[in-house]
């Protein structure tokens, strides 16, 4: 039935080369009106690059794009061009202005004008309110954007794109920072847009979501087209196989029985730590060789709790013991000296230093432990960098490539390498697998279990309960900025959900 619909967009023979990498090789892509089309592939498969070629961010070398009912050739030279042509995009990372109001963000570049040519603020605000109401997003449109969570900002970005009278809507990893309820809301919206005849390109790493909402799948691998499939013809396992080109151990257990045993030695004892308006006082013990998961809805204080321990947000009350010794952590460097490391959830804002090379990004942690005066000799830097590039299979043309040129998953691996290089006793991983392909996801999960085997402790934070169940020995549950319980036995998706949702405390 989908077949009958008219083609709204076709890309033919797209080629694109980055220095040292053939990013796209003769890729075709077809989108029909009124369909939701998943674009799948591992990190570096070329999904984002293809999108960027379409929207004019990248200037591709070869190939053609045809658009509209009459299939006239188009070539966008900027996202503005693309928008004018009816192609709107919401990217993985929110691309709005945090210091402007929600309404201003919605209408930036196309503000309603008054008769005198000035911006019609009243009109803008009322139109923004209408739009938000239509999409069922509860925000005060006069507030500055940065007052809202990343999830909310994402929704606003989508609302902006939706409002721009588009024929093709591209959603590049829109759900990575949304919780289940928000995702459901987004899907409802996507379905209604589809029914209006808009073609939607949906880039995601969440397999379930593809099957929940998409009509059709195009799979890329290593910059090449693997194929285009009807959703019914491609069961989950075959999709994964198509993406990776190999069999996949997604559902296999990665923990063995022995991994359940943890030592009695307490590495961290936190008592009554808190940070105003972010996390209420909490107690938490972490044993050597243990993986503790922090779970809860987005904004429940998962990240904040971890940041409080690490000193990323300085604890305002309470005290903490590390290896039995009373400590005071004022800044991240104090925590690092005690053998801690934090992989933050917002990779772009707090993880990578984008204009530094892969080597410099990896060395940053070790170097700041060594201090500014004791520069680590270049041979040693190269040795360490190469070691971790091999160990974590980081795909990079060279050690001196700027980290911003890598794909998201490889950037994440670089930050993991940064911390592994400091040989920490205790590592906090905040959403380490967000926006990362399935293969790398499993690698990271295995790595976590392995670290625990080596006697290191890990705090693991993830929105995917399944992933936590596979890796964690114990789960701490948070709700509304408060630690409400801990689960050690009978860890199942249901039991965890119950505690997250509220009701009885365990």
């Amino acid at each position, binding site marked *: 039935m989908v077949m009958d619909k008219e083609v709204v967009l076709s890309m033919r023979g797209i080629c694109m080369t980055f220095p040292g990498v053939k990013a796209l090789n003769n890729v075709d892509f077809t989108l029909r009106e009124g369909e939701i089309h998943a674009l799948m592939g591992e990190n570096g498969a070329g999904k984002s690059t293809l999108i960027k070629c379409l929207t004019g961010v990248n200037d591709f070398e070869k190939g053609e794009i045809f658009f509209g009912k009459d299939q006239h050739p188009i070539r966008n030279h900027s996202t503005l061009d693309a928008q004018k042509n009816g192609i709107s995009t919401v990217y993985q990372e929110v691309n709005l202005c945090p210091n402007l109001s929600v309404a201003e963000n919605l209408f930036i570049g196309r503000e309603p004008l008054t008769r005198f040519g000035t911006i019609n603020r009243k009109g803008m605000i009322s139109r923004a309110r209408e739009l938000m109401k239509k999409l069922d997003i509860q925000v005060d449109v006069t507030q500055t954007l940065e007052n809202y969570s990343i999830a909310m900002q994402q929704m606003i970005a989508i609302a902006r794109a939706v409002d721009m009278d588009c024929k093709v809507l591209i959603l590049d990893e829109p759900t990575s920072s949304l919780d289940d309820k928000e995702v459901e809301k987004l899907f409802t919206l996507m379905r209604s847009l589809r029914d209006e005849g808009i073609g939607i390109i949906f880039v995601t790493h969440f397999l379930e979501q593809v099957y929940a909402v998409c009509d059709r799948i195009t799979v890329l691998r290593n910059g090449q087209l693997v194929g285009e499939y009807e959703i019914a013809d491609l069961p989950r396992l075959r999709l994964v196989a198509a993406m990776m080109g190999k069999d996949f151990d997604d559902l296999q257990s990665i923990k063995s029985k022995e991994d359940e045993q943890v030592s009695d030695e307490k590495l961290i004892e936190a008592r009554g730590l808190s940070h105003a308006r972010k996390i209420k006082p909490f107690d938490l013990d972490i044993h050597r060789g243990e993986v503790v998961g922090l779970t809860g809805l987005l904004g429940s204080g998962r990240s904040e709790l971890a940041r409080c321990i690490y000193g990323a947000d300085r604890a305002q009350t309470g005290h903490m013991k590390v290896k039995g010794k009373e400590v005071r952590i004022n800044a991240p460097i104090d925590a690092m000296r005690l053998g801690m490391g934090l992989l933050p959830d917002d990779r772009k804002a707090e993880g990578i230093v984008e204009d*530094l090379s892969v080597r410099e990004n990896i060395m940053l942690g070790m*170097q700041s432990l060594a201090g*500014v005066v004791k520069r680590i000799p270049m041979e040693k830097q190269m040795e360490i960098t190469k070691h971790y590039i091999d160990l974590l299979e980081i795909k990079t043309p060279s050690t001196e490539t700027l980290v911003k040129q890598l794909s998201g998953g490889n950037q994440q691996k670089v930050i993991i390498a940064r911390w592994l290089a400091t040989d920490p006793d205790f590592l906090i991983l905040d959403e380490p697998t967000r926006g990362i392909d399935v293969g790398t996801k499993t690698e990271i999960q295995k790595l976590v279990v392995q670290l625990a085997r080596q006697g290191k402790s890990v705090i693991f934070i993830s929105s995917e309960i399944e992933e936590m169940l596979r890796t964690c020995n114990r789960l701490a549950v948070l709700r509304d900025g408060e630690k409400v319980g801990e689960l050690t036995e009978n860890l199942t998706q249901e039991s965890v959900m119950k505690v997250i949702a509220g009701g009885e405390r365990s």
Partner: protein
Amino acid sequence: MKNGMAWLKKITGMRLFLPLFSVFLVLIINVVYDAVQGNYALEFFRLELKEGALYGRIIDILNRGSEAAILAIGMTLVVSSSAGTDISVGSVMSLAGSLCCMLLAGFGVTHVREIGDLQMPIFVGVLAGIAVASLCGLFNGFLVAKMKIQPMVATLIFFTAGRAIGLLLTNNKMVYIHLDEFKVFGGKLWIFPTPTVIAAACILIMVLILKTTSLGMYVQSVGINPRASRIAGINSTAIILLCYVICGLFSGVAGIVATSRIYSADSNNIGLNLELDAILAVALGGNSLGGGRFNLAGSIIGAYTIQAITTTMYALGVAKAQAPVYKAIIVILIVVVQSPVVKAFFARRRAQKLQAYAVAGRS
């Protein structure tokens, strides 16, 4: 042919290509002018030894460009770490000079002709001048790093107040130190102009620091992403503060050189508009004023390029009053050539050519 292309591509791809290219451009203008005028074509490069000192246009450029080059070192770090500029360096130079002269001569004294009339050894005065400049840097750094005030606003304070404080110290008068021991900083050392030697020393010290410590990586990391740097254990506040102190310190050194040249504290004129040259030097060196990655060599070359332009103007007989106009035109050319738009244009051209080669090769 193919080798030639590869060679050309390698050269144009180098980070220092454009700064060096601009210097080259200025040199060509000189040579062509001299040739047209019927002078010795390589007049520009001629060096001669007169009365035990080296003379020549190149030496003149290196000499007169010393202060800007010294300032450019600190400015590069400030721009990289804080994505802002320190506009107080010129005023701080003059403050350093005024304090130095006032301490040496004593408050209210306007002329010192005998070494015995000095109130303290010259090196103490010089160090005091450099120290006060470093303090100014510390103050600027505190406002920027700790109080999070925008760099231009924070440094505006000393931009306006620096000279006034200098005038207070010198009691609104010019203070002359007619002593060869003091003039030496702006004079000559063996056969070289001392300012050149001091600038070279400053550059050398900074290069050594960047090579042997990880300061360079810290500064760039903080400039690119202060939040990520903090999570990775870097004290961003301290690094930015340090950059401003270093910038202040070098302003002090430049101030002493400029003061020694005219062996007097001339609060109103020392270092006048030099902050603009220093900032321009950083930009000409191919550094983004938005902070982040920096290239010290580029900034230094930039500083001397500016001086080369000025010297060329005078050599061409342009009146001093009109020189800035021509200077501006040359600067526009250089900056436009380095701009992202033009760079992207050439990159596209190159890609198209490569594609054309590929197609030709296939058929």
